[in-house]
């Protein structure tokens, strides 16, 4: 393995940023695996839906995927510096002849539009998450089989399972 000390300092990326973002990515990944294992153990012990701490942990973990993804992106993009094509072309040689004010203007426009659009999107998502799930529509015999396939628990599957659970206690 070639150590960092054998590479010219002028060719170093921002080392602390790469170092920590890589660890954030891997750490979050391990946390996700740990979460999955805990959920598996609880499911096998049939206590998955009662474990309040697991649900709270899930809420805390909600942005973990996004953060891990961004951290991974930092690792590849910052870690590649000062090259834009590794070993072949330096970033400073790839800059297009668009002046800094032009790039700043477009960046500002992107920030404004994205804040507006993503702000609204996150608001709608949180509102959607805060609403109780709507009751499934009453199935009618004329429209076909009561329960065929799907990912949402429907009446035909849900009711006997619930009754069975109560009988077992």
């Amino acid at each position, binding site marked *: 393995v070639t150590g960092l000390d054998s590479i010219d300092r002028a060719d170093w990326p921002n080392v602390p940023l790469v170092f920590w973002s890589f660890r954030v990515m891997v750490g979050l990944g391990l946390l996700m695996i740990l979460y999955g294992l805990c959920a598996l153990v609880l499911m096998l012990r049939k206590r998955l839906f009662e474990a309040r701490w697991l649900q709270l942990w899930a809420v805390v973990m909600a942005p973990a995927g996004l953060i891990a993804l961004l951290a991974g992106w930092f690792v590849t993009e910052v870690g590649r510096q000062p090259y834009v094509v590794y070993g072949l072309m330096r970033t400073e040689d790839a800059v*297009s*002849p668009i002046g800094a004010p*032009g790039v700043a203007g*477009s960046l500002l426009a*992107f920030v404004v*539009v994205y804040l507006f*659009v993503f702000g*609204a*999107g996150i608001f*709608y998502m949180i509102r959607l998450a805060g609403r109780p799930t709507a009751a499934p529509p009453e199935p009618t015999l004329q429209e076909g089989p009561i329960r065929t396939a799907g990912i949402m628990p429907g009446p035909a599957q849900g009711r006997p399972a619930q009754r069975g659970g109560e009988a077992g206690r």
Partner: protein
Amino acid sequence: MTFDLPTIWAVLICVALLAYVVLDGFDLGVGILFPLGKSRKERDTMMNTVAPVWDGNETWLVLGGGGLFAAFPLAYSVLLTAFYAPLIAMLLALVLRGVAFEFRFRTERWKPYWTVSFIFGSTLAAFSQGVMVGAFVQGVETADRAYAGGWFDWLTPFTLLTGLALTAGYALLGACWIAIKTTGDLHARFLRLRIPLGLLAVALLFAVSLATLFQDVAIGSRWLSIANLVLWIIPALTGAAGIGFLVTAARRMEIAPFLCVLAMFALGFAGLAASLYPNLIPPGISYQDAANHDGSLMFMLWGALVLIPVILGYTAYSYWVFRGKVDPDHGYH
């Protein structure tokens, strides 16, 4: 013209851009005409005529842009730098109208804002595309294989005219589309609207064509040379398509006028190609000069040979699934 790899890729990118104009033009047009919806229900119906297909249509823009990047990197770097401001405006406009499709149906309080976002985004995207076509025709300044022009080289009376013309053309396509897909009062109004909009679009197309002839000596002399008389088949067919549009629209037919307008767009595209061939960065840099190495072009061609039939397949399938009139009471959402 020999059929080497750069030529195949130049044709493929032209086809992708034409497919984009043919497919996305009418759904941008629906957005441009959105203020003409009289009630919330009418606007919902208008939006639902394009809601299932609009994002698939924009695939072709990605194919055209991505293909340009990989096949003609010089053209990609020069043209996208030259058109930086209208390009960024188009992308942000497409963002604003794209999310409007999703968010308009999710909220009551904010519905008017997303309606405005849809109108503004569609109109600005159409106008920016027209400006870029005009800026492309008038040519860009290069030095040492890089853009050497100024900030606002893309902004001239000619590019404003092409921007207006493309916006009017898309609006006409949108009106024809709404007339095909709807029923009742909305249907009747857009059937009638097609003729004045068509006259406006044809007048603007004519103005752009004339301005193009006088815009550039090389283009003018190419069209006015006796040796190139065969090129005049393009404007002749465009005129025939225009007359076909007026006749069929006056007879209140639904599909034929739409097809005539699409033919006019394709012929306008052909006229543009005939004016500028073989230049990819007008004036002076041909697509052969701007092409990538044959190895890269061959590698990409294999990908294109697999992907383009897949895209054509799912596009055709989605139009088939959502064929026929839109029921105002049953949205796609």
